[in-house]
């Protein structure tokens, strides 16, 4: 690999490392949820290697645990991960416009919230080798954390596993709550989503919906309502 590409790769490895360490903590808690749903360490690691998405994998785990349908599973991934469409589209402005298809196909594998945020802060144009470096220092942590979460879930005392079972959800709370301080609309978004989710889980008829379908339906309906009521005028990511 030419020297320049090697430098980009190393710089990606370095930039990705803090993300990888954070991923390890999140995927460990994801592993605990997977263990509760009956997945093996191999299955968890495979899911994490191939998917690289916490919310998508958590929903997938719930649907697998409830023995849902493949359609429900595919729909849940489509809806929950749809935001990557926006990130992938925004990356177009950051790469060399003549970048080969091969590199575009490979770079797309690891578009996540954190990796995207790092990528768009890089000097223009974003080198694919930077992305490969980031992948090498994030994906292994993500997969290893998942596998370890499942293994530890199997051997730790039941009282500890019980307490650890709230960890992934606590992290989701820590994702949605802090931005509410800056963007007050989000308080309404988060609160109404939780209230309706609770209602859907408890009310007659509605509670017959599986958890996966509830996520899909509420995300489409509430996402559309809020997009119409409060169009979000953010600037093109710089």
């Amino acid at each position, binding site marked *: 690999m030419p020297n320049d590409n090697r430098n980009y790769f190393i710089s990606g490895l370095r930039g990705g490392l803090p993300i990888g360490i954070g991923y390890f903590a999140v995927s460990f808690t994801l592993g605990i949820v997977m263990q509760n749903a009956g997945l093996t360490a191999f299955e968890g690691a495979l899911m994490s290697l191939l998917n690289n998405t916490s919310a998508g994998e958590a929903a997938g785990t719930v649907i697998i645990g409830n023995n849902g349908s493949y359609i429900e599973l595919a729909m849940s991934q489509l809806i929950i991960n749809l935001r990557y469409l926006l*990130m992938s589209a925004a990356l177009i*402005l950051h790469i060399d416009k003549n970048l080969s298809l091969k590199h575009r196909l490979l770079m797309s594998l690891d578009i996540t919230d954190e990796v995207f945020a790092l990528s768009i802060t890089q000097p223009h144009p974003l080198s694919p080798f930077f992305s490969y470096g980031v992948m090498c220092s994030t994906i292994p942590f993500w997969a290893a954390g998942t596998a370890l979460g499942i293994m530890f879930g199997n051997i730790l005392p039941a009282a500890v596993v019980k*307490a650890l079972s709230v960890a992934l959800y606590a992290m989701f709370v820590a994702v949605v709550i802090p931005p509410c301080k800056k963007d007050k609309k989000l308080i309404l978004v988060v609160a109404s989503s939780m209230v309706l989710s609770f209602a859907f889980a408890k009310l007659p008829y509605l509670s017959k919906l599986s958890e996966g379908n509830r996520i899909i339906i509420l995300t489409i309906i509430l996402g559309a309502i809020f997009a119409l009521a409060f169009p979000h005028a953010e600037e093109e990511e710089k």
Partner: protein
Amino acid sequence: MNIIIAIIIMAVVTYIIRVLPLAVFRKPIKNKFIRSFLYYVPYVTLSVMTFPAILNATGNIYLGGVGFIVAICFSLYKGSLPLVALVSCLAAYILEFFI
């Protein structure tokens, strides 16, 4: 449901979403409704996934409830994900000795 098939379906759907704009469309998304929709999606999805699931996560509604409330309070005070998770788990763990 075969778990390996399920994992492959998830991976294929997720990859298609990631690859389409960058490798196929090659155009930024301009539509304001779609951009706004995609901005709100993670907040709605994660909120719906968290509640009420967190209440049932431990098998005891009080442990989950305390974990949930502690997570909200602590994430308002300090944003770091692992720290919020740790404090929330600790609260649930301590409560286990009292119920």
